[in-house]
C-alpha cells in the first residue's frame, strides 16, 4: 500500500499568540513550531501501522519554506520512508491542496491522509479540497481505519456517535483522535532520518482566491464574580444577562 501523509507545521501549543500591528498575520517572533499533532500522532502513525502490517511505503509531504525541514525530519525519524517539500511560503487551504494534488496525481497513492485540522487556524479544509482536485472520495474525522485488500472500513466521529463507512482505494482521509497512538522518535530513527530522501519540488503557479484580512484575539477573560449565597436572584440574573447561559 502506497500512502501519502500530509503534514503541516503549527505553533507549539504553549505559544503566546500575538499578531502584527495591522492584525493581518501572526507575529512569528519567538514562536516555537511543532508538527501538527493530528498529522503526527494519528495520520502518520496509522499510515506506518498499515505499512508495517501489509508492506508498502509512507511518504510525507509539506508545503512550505526550508525552515519546515525540521518538522519533516521528525516525520522521517518517526518512520516515514521519504518526504517531499513543495517549496513555497504557503497560502490558503485551496493553495495548499492544489500544490499537494499536483504532486500526488502522478504518484498513484492508494491512501492520502491529512490531520482533521491544523491546530493554528482549525480550517479542516485541505483534505476535502485535495480529494476534489484528485477526484477521489473523502472521508473526514476518521477515528478508526482497517484495510482489507482494496477496501477500507472506517469509523467516523459524528455528533453524539460513530458512523462506519466502507470505501475502496484510492481515497483521501482526515485523521481524528483515536486513529492511532503517538510514537516518540528514538535516537536511531533521528539519525536514520538524515539519510532518507527529502525531495524539494517547486510550487506550481496558482492564484490564491482567499486572503486573510484581519486576525483578532478573543476578549480577555473577565474577573470572577462572587455572588452572595443568599442572593440567588442575582446569580440567575448574571447567568441570564451576562453569561447568557440561561
Amino acid at each position, binding site marked *: 500500500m502506497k500512502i501519502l501523509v500530509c503534514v503541516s507545521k503549527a505553533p507549539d501549543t*504553549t505559544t503566546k499568540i500575538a499578531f502584527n500591528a495591522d492584525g493581518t498575520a501572526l507575529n512569528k517572533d519567538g514562536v*516555537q513550531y*511543532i508538527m501538527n499533532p493530528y498529522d503526527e500522532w494519528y495520520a502518520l502513525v496509522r499510515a506506518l501501522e498499515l505499512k508495517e502490517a501489509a508492506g508498502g511505503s509512507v511518504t510525507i509531504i509539506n508545503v512550505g519554506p526550508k525552515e519546515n*525541514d*525540521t518538522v519533516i*525530519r*521528525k516525520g522521517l*525519524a518517526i518512520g516515514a520512508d521519504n518526504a517531499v517539500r513543495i517549496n513555497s511560503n504557503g497560502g490558503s487551504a485551496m493553495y495548499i491542496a492544489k500544490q499537494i494534488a499536483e504532486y500526488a496525481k502522478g504518484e498513484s497513492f492508494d491512501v492520502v491522509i491529512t490531520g482533521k485540522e491544523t491546530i493554528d487556524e482549525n480550517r479542516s479544509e485541505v483534505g476535502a479540497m485535495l480529494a476534489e482536485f484528485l477526484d477521489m472520495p473523502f472521508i473526514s474525522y476518521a477515528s478508526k481505519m482497517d484495510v482489507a485488500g482494496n477496501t477500507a472500513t472506517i469509523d467516523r466521529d459524528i455528533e453524539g456517535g460513530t458512523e462506519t463507512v466502507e470505501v475502496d482505494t484510492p481515497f483521501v482521509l482526515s485523521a481524528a483522535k483515536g486513529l492511532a497512538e*503517538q510514537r*516518540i*522518535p*528514538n*535516537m*536511531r*530513527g*533521528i*539519525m536514520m*532520518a*538524515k539519510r532518507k530522501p527529502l525531495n524539494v519540488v517547486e510550487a506550481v503557479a496558482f492564484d490564491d482566491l482567499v486572503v486573510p484580512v484581519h486576525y483578532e484575539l478573543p476578549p480577555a477573560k473577565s474577573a470572577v464574580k462572587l455572588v452572595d449565597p443568599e442572593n440567588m436572584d442575582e446569580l440567575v440574573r448574571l447567568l441570564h444577562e451576562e453569561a447568557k447561559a440561561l
Partner: protein
Amino acid sequence: MQTNSNGIHTIEKKAKEDRYQHHDYYNIDELLDDDHLLARDAVRTWVKQSVSPIIEEYSEKAQCPTHLFKELAEIGAFGPSLPVEYGGGGMDEIAYGVIMQELERGDSGIRSMASVQGSLVMYPIFRFGSEEQRRKYLPKLGSGEFIGCFGLTEPDHGSNPSGMVTNIKDDGDAYILNGSKMWITNSPVADIAVVWAKDEAGKIRGVIVEKDMKGFHAPEIHGKWSLRASITGELVFEDVRVPKANILPEVVGLKGPLSCLSKARYGIAWGAIGAALDCYDSALRYSLEREQFGKPIGQFQLTQKKLAEMITEITKAQLLAWRLGSLANKGKATPAQISMAKRNNVNMALEIAREARQIHGGMGITNEYPVMRHMMNLETVLTYEGTHDIHLLITGMDVTGLNAFK
C-alpha cells in the same frame, strides 16, 4: 498508592500536568542542529509522558521505577554517542548532552540511570574492551536487556580512588576478586558490573563481573534523602572467580576509570541545566500566578532579582555546555574543562533550586512542585562524579601546574 494482595504497596500512575516550557534567552537553539532539536523534543515528550506523572510518588516512596530502563533504551538514551553497530545511537556529543539535560529536567535519578549505563558501562567496554566483549555486552546494554553498574568508589576511598584496596589475583584461567565498592548507582538491579581493582603489581585493571558469579553480592543502600527514585547499592566480592576473558584488555591504570568519569561528568554538566530550567520554569510560573498584597509576587523587586539572576546563570551555563560540546565533538574537551563545567553547572542548579524554593513559599517544600525534589537530588550531584571541591582543585592544578591533592 494501593496495596496489593501481598500487602505490598504498589504505585499507580498519577496524572499530573507537566507545564514545563523551554527557556532559551540567548537563542542558543540557533547553535544546535536538527538532530539535537529532534532528540531534545523526543526526550522531553517522553519525560512528560513517562516520568513527570510518576516521579514525585516514586521519589517519596524511595522506589526505583525500574520499568523505565526499557523505555530509556527504546528512546535511545543509553550510549547515544556510541556507534550504532555496538548498540549506540551514532550521535554527537551535543546530542548526548541535550538528552541528559532533558532527562534531568525530569529527575536527576532518571538521568543517573542513563548516564551510568551509557558513560560508565557501555563506554569502557566500547573503549577498553575486546571485540568479543563489545559484541557480547554492548547490544544487550543498549537495548536495556542488561542493566550495568560501575564500581570505583570504596567505603574508605572516594575522592582518592588510587588508594583502592579491591584486588584481583591471578589463578590460572581466572582472577580471584576480593573487596567492596560503595555508592554504586543501579547495582542491586544490575546484570553486570564494570569493576576497577588492583592486580598483584598494584596496577588498576577493569573487570566485567556478572551477577550470577559466586561470591558476588550487591545489597541496596537505604535511607537516602536524595536521588530517591534511583537505586543505589554496594558491591561485595568474596573470592569471586572472574574469567580472564572478562578483563578489559586495553587499559591499565587510573586513566581507565577517569576517562569514563570524564564522559559522565560531561553529561552531568548538561544534565544539571535541565534541573535548573525546571526549577526556574516552575518559579517563573508561580511568581506570575501567586498574588500577595494585591499583585503577582513576580512584580516585587526581590522576586525579580531572583528570577533575573536565575535566567542569567542558566544562560551562562547553557553557553558553557554548548562550547564544551563543540570541543568534545572535535575530541578536544580536556578533563579539566569538563571539571569546570560540571562544577559550575551543578552548583548553579543547586543555587537556583534553593532560590526557586523560596519563590514558591511554603508550597515549595511540597511535592506539588518539583523544586524540593530537584534540590535534594542536586546535593548528590554536587558530590558524586568528583566533588565540588575536588573539581575546584583540578582547575587549580590546571592553571598553576601545582598539585594540591598531595
